[in-house]
Structure formats: structure tokens, C-alpha cells
């Protein structure tokens, strides 16, 4: 499948930045399901689990979408997933599946597949029995059930495992069986809870490939919960970053990376320099970020006067002294990473600036030396309380 | 016909009675400690295999076996064949503290055999056991039946099959005759043992060496049956039992005949597949201090040891202590002296 086709299969849409909590409106590019209503819609959904309160969360998912729910451990991702599956009752808000209120539906009528973190295979059945389990309740004819079974087994690649007992499977195999079991009943929506968790490093890329292939072939709308941001890059088109029971930002993964909405998102996605800054309007209609040790032009008016400035390390480069936009810095440390040189600079006022330099630039640097730096791309402004 | 048999029986009985010349002199139950003689005789077992000149060791062994037959027939009454030995061991152990002399009378032989096996290996089997000696003598005399064969069992041949079937027919005919003419010994399970031997013979004719290893597990079953019978105080007589007992015992004769016949086809058939004592001795000798050890550096894998072994206990120079009879043929026939008797006194597990 071509790259474009794959993107469209993942339901990638033009980037759209939103303030946290506002519902995402999505339009499916694949006319599989009547596109009148989104497949899944959460409207200010709230959960109460003992002392922990989750939400309100608003989300929507179109048929064929692949959404990654990203967040640190304990942020409520799994609870949200279980609420969608129907394991937890909701406290407030609405949950629509294909336009119908689903909160009152029992688990087995929701048509939502769920693969838990521990795979939860039935230990008394062999692999074939596990995969076949749900087919008993589908409305397919026996012949269709057989075909469905064979198709799923082939797709997930379980041919050699069918008569194995679950206890003898490796972590990756067990996860694949659980996936096949959930997909065999053709769920409207598939919920994956940390599908790569508890797998060893070798098994992860393989599992990711399986997930991508299955989504491309079957087009099942999927919500994939993880705390590893690399997974989001690898598999998801869109991702929602959660924090303490709320969605901080929902956007295509590239945008999350480049244009995070909050400081938390920027720091959770990692690697970037996040520096406190003031923003001033420029006479020409643009804006300028002012830091202790310099100022940078921004692409457009941020609409706020104080906040954070995101400078990606790969956007920092050496400059000739006196070049326009150049600023002085001291080299703190240099380490060669092969593909690039990672350098830590101290710009004025004790601000630390991490940079990824091309190898030939970084070769001449020594700790303690003074250099001139410039930015190769306009930095991104993030709203937020600087003093806090 | 019937009178002929009963007359033969009488004749046999009288002959046996006359053979026991030492009957009165060595009556163990009357306070003379005759059974201690077994301690003496079997104590010698520990020494004989190592002190006789190596050049003629097999000849000395034959002499010792003949001596063993004599000893068991003339002196040791308590043994009563391998089954009787287990039964009496059970009885003797129960008598300790009540009738110590009776206990000694019944325990001395089995205890001595087990103890020598635990220290000096299964020397009893190869050097003194009368049943084993009987089979070996038959093997010696009718050696050509065994020739051309490295492992147990022959390749399939119609001649052999016909012979086995004929033996079975004769046996079954005799059984039918016996059961028609007299009240049969119900408890006399030797009949069943002989039957097993017959079946074994047939199996061996057909399946030959392929089942050798599996059939050897019958020994465990045999041991279990005999022990259970001993506890339930059932009398099961064994082959060669009639030689020890003055009771006219056709079942035992029959079993002996069967053992002898089967030994024509398979060397040491009784020891391999059925002997319950062999199982006990194998257990006792598993970690014996004196054992056969192979020096792998000297072994040329010529296969001579496997050729000469009567019980297929040696394979590629390695001696299997579960099957070995300590006849030392492999030691004497090894061209490089790779197999040797060793004393191994390291701590046991």
C-alpha cells in the first residue's frame, strides 16, 4: 500500500490544534460505515473510581481511525478504555457508539473488542479454541465462521500455534492470539491496552508491524493505549495525550511533536528545549519571543504575552559571529552519537539549550568554549503560566 | 499313562529325598546355627571373583556355579527358589524379636545376598545363582542356537516360529492333562509364570530384539506380584523350586522346563525378563562399591564385550549396572583391558 493510501487508511487529516477538552470532529475518508455519526463519541465523559476521578473527556473517532491514547502511567488511560468497553460505569457525560447512547448497554452487546494488557487468554482452551471463542455468538453461518476464522488466523499469522496451550506461548504470541480472538468477531471498535507492554525488545517491532498490517487489512477503528511515545510515532496517525484524567491535546502525531499545545505535552514527548519567554507583538503583525538572552521571531501572533518557547534541538545550528539572529553561548558538554553530535550549551542567564548538530559542525566543539548559535526554524510558542 | 506319571513322580521324590543326605545334621530349627553357613559361603563370594587367577577366571566361575547348585540343593532349605526367598524373607523379618532363630533361618540368605550386592555388586547372579547357572549351562551346551546373533532375539524365521508353537502346544497339552487328572494347585502360580514364559517366547520369535528393553520391565511387575503374594501369604513356587523341596511339585518342574526351553532361544531369559530377585539385586547393586568401570581412553569400541555378554548389559564398552551379572566375561575378553573391576568408595548420594 502506498504511503498516501496508508495515511488515508489511518484517517489522517490536516492538522488541527485545539485547546484541551474540546471535542474533535472527524470525518472519515473511508465510506465503510455511514458517515453520518462518528463511530465513537465521548461527550464530557466522567468516571469515578474510588477516590480517582477521570474526565471530563471528550473524544471522537471515525470508522477506520487509529487513535493512540498517550500518557504517563496512572493518568487514567486504561480506565477510560475500560469505560468504553463497558467494564466501568460512567459517572457523567455521554458515550455514543455509532450515534447511539452506549452507557447502558451490557458489555457483550457493545460490539467493542478489547485486548487487555495481560492478554487474558482462556487457559483451558488451546489457541484455536481461544480464537474461535467469540464466533459462537456471531450471527454468521457456520461456513462464514470458518472462513472468518481462517482469514484471521492467516492475517495474524497463527498457523503454527493453533494447537498450543496458552501457558506455552511467549508474550508476543499470546498477544497475537488475543488480538486474533478479539478481531475474529469483527468488532466495530478495537481497544488495545498497552499491546506492546511486557514484550521484550525483539518482539516489539514485530508486534507493531502486525498491528499496522491488521489495521490496513481490516480497517477496524482502533484505540491504542500506551505510555511509550515511540509507539505513537510508529503506528498511530492521531494521538491524544492524557494527563491526570484529562486529554491535554488531540492531534496528528507530527503536530503533537512540532506544535504541542501545552508544556506538559512538549515535555512528555521529550527532547525539546522548553524555555520561559515573553511574547511581544511586532509592528509588522508578526510576533517576537523575548528571552533573557535574546529574541526570536515567531511565525504568527500567539495571542498571549507570556508562555513557553519550544526550541527543538535539531533546529539549533552553529552560526557565524554577527550573523543575523545569532546569539552567543558556552559549550557545556559534547557527545558524539554517530548520526549527530549532541551538545549542551549554556546561553545567557544559565539557560540550558540542548542541540543536535551535524557531525562536521560538532567535531570542533570543546567543552568550555564560546560559540555563536542560530535557529534554523522558527520556534513554537506555548501558552502557560511561566511563574508556576 | 497316569500310572506312569505317578510312578515317575514317586521315583523322583525318592531320589530327591535321598539326595538330602545332610537333612538331619543341619536342621536349622533345632538350635544349630546352620544358616550361618550361608554367611560364610556368600562371604566368600566377595573374595572369589577377585582372588581367582584371571587367566582361568571363567573356569573357576563355572566351578563356583556348580558348587552353588550343590549348596542350594543340599544345604540351604530356606531359599526355596527365588519366590520362596522373598516370601520367607517377609516371614523372617516378621519373626524378629519373637522367634529369632526362625528369623535368622529365613533372613540369612536374602539378607546376605542383598548385602553382598550392595558392597560387591551383583556377584550372586553371575557366580552362584542356580537358576542362572542352569540357563547358562543350557546356553553353553546348545550354544549354536545363539550363534550368529548379537542382540537378544533372532531374525524372523518360520523354523523358529514353528518350534515356539510346538513348545506352546506341548505345554498347553500337558496343562490340560494335569488339570484333568488331579485337583490342580490353584495357588501354584508357577503355571502362570510358565505361561508368561511361553507368551514371551512367542513374542520373541516375532518381535525379537525390538522389545527386549521393554520386556525387561516385566521384572518390576514380577517383583511386585511376588511381594504382594508374600504379604497376602499366597504360595507361589518358582522354577527349580522342586529341587529344594521334597514336595512333589509339577508346576515347578513345568516352570523349570519352560525356563530351560526359553533359555535355548534367549540366553538368560529368566534373569532378563522375569526374575524378581534380579530386580531387588539390581536395586541393591545400583551404587555398589565394587563395580565395572570402563576407561574410555583405552576402549577401542571393538564390540567384543557386547558379544560375550549373556544379558546384553554392555553396550559400546559401557556396563549397565541394572543388568550386569558380574560374570566378568567382558573384563576377561577385553583386548585392551579397558573394562576393569574398580572399588569406588566415594560418598553416595
Amino acid at each position, binding site marked *: 500500500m502506498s504511503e498516501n493510501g496508508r495515511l488515508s487508511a489511518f484517517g489522517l487529516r490536516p492538522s488541527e490544534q485545539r485547546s484541551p477538552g474540546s471535542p474533535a470532529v472527524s470525518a472519515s475518508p473511508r465510506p465503510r460505515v455511514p458517515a453520518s455519526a462518528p463511530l465513537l463519541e465521548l461527550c464530557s465523559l466522567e468516571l469515578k473510581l474510588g477516590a480517582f476521578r477521570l474526565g471530563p473527556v471528550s473524544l471522537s473517532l471515525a470508522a477506520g481511525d487509529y487513535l493512540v491514547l498517550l500518557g504517563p502511567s496512572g493518568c487514567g488511560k486504561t480506565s477510560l478504555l475500560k469505560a468504553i468497553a463497558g467494564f466501568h460505569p460512567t459517572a457523567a457525560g455521554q458515550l455514543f457508539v455509532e450515534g447511539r447512547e452506549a452507557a447502558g448497554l*451490557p458489555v457483550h452487546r*457493545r460490539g467493542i473488542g*478489547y485486548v487487555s494488557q495481560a492478554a487474558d487468554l482462556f487457559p483451558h482452551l488451546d489457541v484455536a479454541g481461544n480464537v474461535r471463542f467469540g464466533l459462537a455468538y456471531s450471527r454468521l453461518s457456520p461456513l462464514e465462521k470458518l472462513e472468518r476464522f481462517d482469514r484471521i488466523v492467516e492475517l495474524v499469522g497463527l498457523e503454527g500455534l493453533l494447537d498450543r496451550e496458552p*501457558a506455552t506461548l511467549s508474550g508476543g504470541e499470546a498477544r497475537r492470539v488475543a488480538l486474533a480472538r478479539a478481531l475474529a468477531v469483527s468488532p466495530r471498535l478495537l481497544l488495545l491496552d498497552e499491546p506492546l507492554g511486557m514484550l521484550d525488545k525483539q518482539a516489539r517491532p514485530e508486534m507493531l508491524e502486525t498491528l499496522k498490517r491488521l489495521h490496513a487489512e481490516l480497517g477496524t477503528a482502533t484505540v491504542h493505549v500506551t505510555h511509550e511515545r515511540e509507539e505513537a510515532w510508529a503506528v498511530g496517525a492521531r494521538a491524544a495525550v492524557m494527563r491526570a484524567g484529562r486529554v491535554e491535546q488531540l492531534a496528528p502525531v507530527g503536530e503533537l511533536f512540532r506544535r504541542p499545545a501545552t508544556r506538559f505535552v512538549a515535555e512528555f514527548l521529550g527532547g525539546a528545549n522548553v524555555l520561559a519567554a515573553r511574547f511581544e507583538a511586532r509592528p509588522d503583525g508578526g510576533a517576537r519571543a523575548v528571552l533573557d538572552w535574546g529574541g526570536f521571531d515567531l511565525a504568527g501572533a500567539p495571542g498571549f504575552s507570556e508562555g513557553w518557547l519550544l526550541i527543538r534541538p535539531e533546529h539549533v545550528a552553529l552560526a557565524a559571529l554577527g550573523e543575523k539572529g545569532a546569539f552567543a553561548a558556552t559549550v557545556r558538554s559534547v557527545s558524539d552519537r554517530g548520526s549527530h553530535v549532541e551538545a549542551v550549551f549554556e546561553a545567557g542567564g544559565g539557560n540550558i539549550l540542548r542541540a543536535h548538530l551535524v557531525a562536521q559542525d560538532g567535531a570542533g566543539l570543546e567543552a568550555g568554549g564560546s560559540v555563536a548559535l542560530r535557529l534554523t526554524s522558527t520556534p513554537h510558542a506555548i501558552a502557560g503560566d511561566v511563574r508556576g | 499313562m497316569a500310572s506312569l506319571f505317578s510312578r515317575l513322580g514317586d521315583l523322583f521324590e525318592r531320589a530327591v529325598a535321598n539326595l538330602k543326605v545332610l537333612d538331619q545334621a543341619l536342621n536349622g530349627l533345632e538350635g544349630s546355627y546352620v544358616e550361618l553357613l550361608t*554367611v560364610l559361603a556368600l562371604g566368600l563370594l566377595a573374595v572369589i571373583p577377585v582372588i581367582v587367577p584371571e587367566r582361568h577366571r571363567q573356569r573357576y566361575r563355572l566351578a563356583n556355579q556348580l558348587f552353588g547348585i550343590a549348596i542350594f540343593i543340599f544345604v540351604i532349605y530356606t531359599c526355596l527358589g527365588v519366590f520362596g526367598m522373598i516370601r520367607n524373607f517377609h516371614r523372617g523379618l516378621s519373626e524378629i524379636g519373637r522367634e529369632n532363630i526362625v528369623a535368622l533361618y529365613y533372613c540369612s540368605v536374602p539378607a546376605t545376598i542383598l548385602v553382598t550386592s550392595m558392597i560387591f555388586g551383583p556377584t550372586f547372579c553371575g557366580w552362584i545363582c542356580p537358576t542362572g547357572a542352569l540357563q547358562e549351562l543350557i546356553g553353553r551346551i546348545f550354544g549354536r542356537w545363539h550363534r550368529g546373533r548379537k542382540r537378544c532375539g533372532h531374525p524372523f524365521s518360520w523354523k523358529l516360529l514353528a518350534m515356539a508353537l510346538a513348545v506352546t502346544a506341548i505345554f498347553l497339552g500337558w496343562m490340560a492333562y494335569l488339570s484333568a487328572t488331579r485337583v490342580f494347585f490353584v495357588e501354584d502360580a508357577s503355571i502362570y509364570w510358565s505361561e508368561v514364559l511361553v507368551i514371551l517366547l512367542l513374542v520373541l520369535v516375532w518381535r525379537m530384539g525390538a522389545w527386549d528393553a521393554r520386556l525387561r520391565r516385566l521384572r518390576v511387575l514380577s517383583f511386585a506380584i511376588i511381594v504382594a503374594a508374600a504379604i497376602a501369604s499366597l504360595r507361589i513356587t518358582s522354577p527349580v523350586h522342586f529341587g529344594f523341596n521334597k514336595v512333589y511339585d509339577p508346576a515347578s518342574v513345568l516352570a523349570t522346563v519352560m525356563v530351560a526351553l526359553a533359555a535355548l532361544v534367549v540366553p538368560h531369559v529368566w534373569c532378563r525378563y522375569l526374575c524378581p530377585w534380579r530386580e531387588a539385586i539390581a536395586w541393591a547393586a545400583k551404587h555398589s*562399591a565394587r563395580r565395572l568401570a570402563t576407561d574410555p581412553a583405552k576402549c577401542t569400541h571393538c564390540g567384543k564385550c557386547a558379544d560375550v555378554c549373556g544379558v546384553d548389559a554392555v553396550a559400546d564398552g559401557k556396563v549397565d549396572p541394572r543388568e550386569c551379572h558380574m560374570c566378568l566375561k567382558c573384563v576377561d575378553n577385553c583386548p585392551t583391558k579397558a573394562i576393569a573391576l574398580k572399588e569406588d568408595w566415594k560418598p553416595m548420594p
Partner: protein
Amino acid sequence: MNERSGKRLRLLVAGALLAGHVANYAIQALLGHLHPIGFLRELLGSGKVDDHELFQMLLLAANLALGPALISGRGNLMLGAGSMFLILAHAWVGVRVVPDPLTSGAALVVNILVLYVGTRLSERLPAKHLAAFAASYFALFFIFVEIKWGFLIPALKGRTGMGNAEPLFLLFVMGLCACARSWRLLAWFWAVTVSFTFLQPYAWESAVVLCFIVAALFGARGALRSPTALVFLGVGLALAGLVLFPVVAAIMGESPQNLGNILGDERIQKAVGRTLVTATASTLFLVALAVPLAYALARLHFPGRSLLLAAIDVPIVIPQSVAGLALVRVFGAGQPLGGVIENVFGVRFDGTLWGVCLAQVFVAMPFIVKAALAAFESVPVELELSARTLGASPWNAFRRVALPLASRGIFLGAVLAWARAAGEFGALLFIASNSEVETAPVLAWNLFGSVGSAQAGPLVAVLLGFSLAMFFLLQLATRTLPRPAVAQNADATAAAQRAEATA
């Protein structure tokens, strides 16, 4: 130099012993105890010889062969000299201590064996082994000889029924020689020896129990190589032995013929058959009701749950006689509830098989409910939820996931309940003990009351063997049922640890 001094030592020791033996023989001949000339004449003549003379001659010949061999440098000096010394000693004192030359000869063989084993132990093994060997030797001496003769402690003399035990001492010393090399074998040896000397009326029974204990102690393996755990195992095994012993004794104490006769008795056949039928019926009834109850208890929290859990144990807590009385008071004929049931359904409880089943259900209930509850609690809720997401209704999730996974535990509970029902006695005495409906345990009591314990013994053995056989058979059958979901989770945890380690 060293070699020469070694040779001199050999010459000195072996020569002295040889000379000593020859001198002993000569002195005895001079004193008229021995007649070598007459002996030889008889040997060559009639062939009939005095065994005392023969024995002395053989001993002399043995030393005459051993001595020169030792002097010429063959053999182990310690072993050889020791053997020569023993032979000399037997020639000197032999007949004065033991009754006849044959016994003396046997004692000589055993003594040489002891010397040989002792030498080897001291040469090749840690000193502990030799010490244990010596200690065991003296213990055997004490048991078989000292208690009768009172050599060392005269007060002990004659304090035992072990008459004529000296030759047995020889046999047991031989056994000790065979077992001295290994602690495990030594333990087996002592288990058997203690059983057959001190515990003689119950020798076989105690041998079974002691051997079981020895096998367990010496077979014990564990990741934590802790002596404490081993000591605890020993203590626990002592307790187990206390329980096992009467059981083993009751079964092994009866002769098989008696057991066969007992089984042929019609009254007993009927009682056993009745026990089978009622216990099975009661168990089926219990399973049908206890499984739903246990599932509900495992999956729901409701007011009064802990009270209910405690109440389930009541039949275990209260005395069986009280249970029987309570049942009679409620269900008995003429009692309010029992009367209503009799009038409406025509079912009468006291003195009928219905009553037997009622009492069995009453006492067996806790076992199956507890077992089924534990079984359902061991089935993770997540598995049932997974089944639900696959489209299974709550009933189907129970039927296809929870029930199969709990079946092993339920079955084990049913086995226990069956055993309890089949063995019920106390409550039955009150509600149904007449001979028309007596079950096997009640029959044992009735027999004991009428003919005494000796006659009831075989029945007891049969009942015991029968219940134990049933119990173990059912336990075996349980192995075919699915295991609870532990292995898989362990696997997942291991994978997680691996993932963490690589990260």
C-alpha cells in the same frame, strides 16, 4: 628407605601374627585341646572329622596363606594384618564365646567385613562416616547382645524378649556394613532396624511410615537450602507419621483372607453399596446447589456476605451428635417441618435413606462450598470480562470460562464432600441407624457393639482401604481437569521483567 621400612613393618607385623597363631595352635595341641595328628588320620581315613578340629585347622591354614602373602608385599597391610588378627582371635577365644565353629566362622566373616568397611571408610570418606558407622555398630551391639548379656550395664540384663539374638546381630551388622557409605542408606537401615526390633508387633506398619519419612527427608530439595526448613519437615513428618500409623496399621493388620471373607458377607455388601449410593446422591445434590452459591459469593459483595461465609462452617464446628439431634428435631417424624414434608411430599426422614442423605448433605456442605468458592476466586474476573467483550452473555461467560476453570477445584471439593458424606457417622446415629438403612460406618459401630473390635477389624480395614482407594482415584481423575490460570500470568510477569531488564 621408606620402602624398606615399609617392608620391615610388614615382616614384623605379619610375622608376629603368624608366629602367634602357630604358637596358639601348638600350645592348644600340647595342652591336649587339639589333635592335629588324629585329625589328619581321620580326614584321610574315614572322612568324618570333628568340626572343631576342622575349624581350627582351616583358621591356621588361612593365616598360613595370608601371612606370607602380606610379607611378600601383596595386599593392604592394615586390612591383611587386621584379618590375620581376627582369625587368630577366633582361633583363640572363638569356641569359648560362641556355641559352635560354624557360628564362629560366620562371626569371623562378618568381623572381617566390618574391618574391611571400616578401613575403606577411614581411607576414602570423611571421618563423620566412620564415626556414624562405629556408633551404629555399638547401638546394634546394645540392642542385640548387651541387653541380654549385660556386659557393660548389668542392670539391663535380661530386660528383653530377644532370646537367641546374637546371630541376628551378625546379620544386622552386615546390613550396616552395606549401608555405611551413605547417610541416606544409613537412615533407611535404621528405619528398618528400629521398626523390626523396637516396634516389632507393628514392624511392617512402622517400617512403611518410617521409610516414608526417611524418603521425604532425604529427597527434600529446594531453592532455599535451609536446614531450618528441613528440621521443620522432620517435625511435620513426625505429625504425619502419627496420623499415618493407625491408618497403615489398620489396613496392614488384617490378613487378606479375612478381608476376602468380609467382602462376601451380604450385610456388609449391602451397607457398602448403600454408602456408595447415598454419598453419591448427596454429593450430586450438593454440587447442584453449592456451585451457584459459591459463584455468587466469589463475584458479589452484599450485606451479610461474611456472615454467610461464617455460617457455612457451622456443620464443621458443631459436634456431630448435636447436628444429628438438630436434624431430628426439625425433620423428624412428628416434628413440625418433618410432618409437613411427610404429609405433602410423602417423604419421611428418620429411619430412611432420605434421612441418610439429609445428614450427609448437612455435614458435607462446607467442604464443597469452600472449595468451589476458592476455585471461583482463583478465576480472574478479567477472563470473564474478555469473554463478554467477545459477545458472550454473563451466563455464557460463566459456563464457558469460569466453570471450566473452576471445575478442578469444584471436583476436588466434591471428592472431599463425597468422602465426608460416605464417612458420616455421628449424625446418622440419630436419624438413621437401624440395620435396614445402615451405611458402612454405622455398620462398623453396630458390629463393634455386638461382636467387639477383633471381629470388626477386617471391616474397618476394608472400609479404610475402600475409602482411600476411592479418594486417590478421584484425586487422580482431577488431574485431567484444566488448571487455574497461573502459569500464563507467571509467563507474562517473566516477560515483563525481561522487558525491563533490556530497557
